[in-house]
């Protein structure tokens, strides 16, 4: 078991390095850097000025070396200009160049400064991840129990009326991406002109103009049902359909197994057959699916945060990407990649634990 985890961690590390390199490479392409130079320096710089700006800011040299610098595995660049002023990646504005550390990269906790937010990347990341954390937590709390319940209820009697209704529901929701369900939910529940809200307002049931709020910006400070309900529902809806379908498939398969017949013919009642004999076996596959759903949640988070203007991780990613904020984008990628890899690891280990056949095999 230990050997397995170590091996997995090794593969994970390699994957993380390769992926961050790819991100580094793609964000530090010459056109991006040129754009950076013009936005940090001046828009009307000549090509020669751009080249010298880039050189002065350590953006020259091989991409591999710059990647290592960024990681903190190679010494940061140091340049002394004609005026005798020494500047470097690791030298703060008022620091003494002699005292500055040689290495300063991600390993040393120096993730750079965001050009858009004018704060350190770590600070901005921390803040936005906290916001997104609440969103994800709420989504999970809604999505997982609902999806499992729907899946199990539909799958325990394949072909029944309950099954048909619930399956159709899950297919419909898994066919509705977040940017569609979000739009529809807003129109139905958070628009003063259409949907439920005008009616409710007319009847005097709600004080404000709309039932739910169409933006979640206020949830940054104070989460309420009314400002957080729609974003959570939007992300959860898509996931519910997907997980419920997986659970149903797994459940129907388990229900046709010989050992379920054995249990039935032992005289075990239907409830107990489902709860004691089927459920655990049927949960193995959906568990993996749920864990692997996390990365996809990230997608939903980006869409929903953009749609509802909630300044979390996704919103920040979009803003950084839209504004050529290289350091921020790199930081966000590291987080996203590690997040995905960790969920994969948990999913693998959890699968082994849930499945005695592998655990003790």
């Amino acid at each position, binding site marked *: 078991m230990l050997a397995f985890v170590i091996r997995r961690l090794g*593969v994970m590390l390699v*994957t993380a390095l*390769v*992926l961050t390199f*790819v*991100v580094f490479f*793609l*964000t530090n*392409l*010459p*056109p*991006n850097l040129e*754009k950076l130079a013009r936005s940090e320096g001046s828009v009307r710089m000549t090509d020669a000025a751009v080249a010298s700006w880039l050189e002065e800011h350590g953006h020259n040299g091989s991409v591999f070396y710059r990647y290592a610098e960024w990681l903190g595995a190679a010494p940061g660049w140091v340049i002394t200009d004609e005026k005798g002023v020494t500047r470097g990646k690791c030298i703060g504005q008022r620091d003494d160049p002699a005292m500055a550390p040689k290495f300063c990269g991600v390993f040393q906790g120096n993730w750079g400064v965001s050009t858009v937010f004018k704060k350190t990347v770590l600070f901005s990341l921390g803040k936005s991840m906290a916001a997104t954390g609440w969103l994800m937590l709420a989504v999970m709390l809604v999505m997982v129990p609902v999806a499992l319940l729907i899946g199990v209820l539909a799958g325990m009697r394949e072909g029944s009326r309950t099954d048909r209704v619930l*399956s159709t529901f899950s*297919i*419909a929701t*898994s*066919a*509705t*991406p977040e*940017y*569609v369900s979000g*739009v*529809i939910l*807003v*129109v139905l529940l*958070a*628009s*003063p*002109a*259409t949907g439920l809200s005008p009616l409710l307002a007319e009847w005097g049931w709600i004080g404000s103009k*709309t039932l739910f709020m*169409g933006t979640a910006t206020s949830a940054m400070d104070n989460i309420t049902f009314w400002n957080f309900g729609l974003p959570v529902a939007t992300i959860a809806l898509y996931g519910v359909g997907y997980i419920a379908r997986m659970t149903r498939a797994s459940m129907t398969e388990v229900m046709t197994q010989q050992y379920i017949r054995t249990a039935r013919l032992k005289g075990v009642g239907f409830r107990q057959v489902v709860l004691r004999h089927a459920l655990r076996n049927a949960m193995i596959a959906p568990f993996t699916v749920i864990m692997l759903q996390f*990365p*996809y949640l*990230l*997608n939903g988070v*980006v*869409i929903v945060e*953009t*749609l509802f203007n909630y300044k979390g991780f*996704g919103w920040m*990613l*979009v803003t950084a*990407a839209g504004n050529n904020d290289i350091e921020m*984008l790199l930081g*966000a*990628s590291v987080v*996203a*990649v590690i997040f*995905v*890899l960790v969920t*994969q690891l948990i999913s693998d280990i959890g699968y082994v634990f849930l499945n005695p056949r592998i655990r003790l095999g």
Partner: protein
Amino acid sequence: MSSLIPESGWADMSEPLSWAAIFGLMAKQFWPVWVALTVTFALSFRFKRSLGLYGKLFDSPVAIVGFALVMFWVFTALFANVIMTFDPLAQLGSVKNPLPGAVVPEGAEGQYKWFLLGGDHLARDVFSRMVMGARQVLIIAPAATTFAFLVGITLGLPAGYIGGRLDTGLSFLANLVLAFPVILLFYLLVTPEIRNTGIPVVLAAVLFLIPIAFFAILFQSRFHTSPNKRNLYVGITLVLGLWAYSGLAFNADPLGVWGMDPNLLNVFVSVVFVNAPTVFRIVRGIVMDIKSRDYVAAGQTRGEKGWYIMLWEILPNARGPLIVDYCLRIGYTTILLGTLGFFGLGVTPESPDWGSTINAGRKLLSMVPHPAVVPALALMSLVLGLNLLADGLREESLKD
């Protein structure tokens, strides 16, 4: 029926239309689709017993609904020129966001009188944009999915069949791509900067070569025993393939038949790149299952080469789950393309594709919903149709 639909002389030209009239006029506008659907279903029901798996679809109500939805949009895409009421890019008047059923301000003679489903913030006709958007979506999504399948199959077959180091290497690469959050990948891959570096062209050059290799190997492994046939089939594959290749990947088709807008190429390559690893994993799994069958061993014991066994003994027997996944994946690709549009990536802003239109419409969503809701519902119904179709297919193919 006809009494419900206001004929042009019948309705008051200066009054907006009622909802009933809007739906009536839309139904009328879609007439080529109804005709085509009727013919398709009539023929399919008539011959359903001799049409194999396709025929069996018509035994399952779920599949029928799914198929009808999908075919509705396919025919809409085909007959878009007839169906749409305006040029999807034309700006009609100066009023922003005209409501559904609103009258089009003064215009040329013989032009359509109403905004059936309203107009957007540039006063472009939402109905026509939705119809034209169907054509955009239904060209790119199936094509990108097909490419992703060819790439996934070509790499997944040897990974599953041969295994060992090859499998370890390819699986690592696949997992690498899968570990990338899709949205991040899009933000990195689908940018104007990337296009300037030529990376998409390089990627396309590699990815587009794989389908040609696939078909060439397919025929070579089957017909190597009779060189004449082999030369014919492999020759045709290479000529057609390389011709299209020159045009699609490098925009250098000497005859100018094949070509792809660089924006589109970028989107296309990214979508293939994201989908192929998943297909790879599915194919690999199925192959590992099938390769222990006796008919595979029979092929091996008569000295068949690996590619023959993979392509002609294993692949045809993996078709069931692959077809089901293909349907699902077209839906998923549609969603992905929508996502791209939603973030304004890749395609030009005036493009009528559904994702971009939703993006454009969402800014004023709570006040004027129709520019966003119409393409949203269109996209949802297409994906729903594909999912229902896949579900029905799976159910029917299991009944064998």
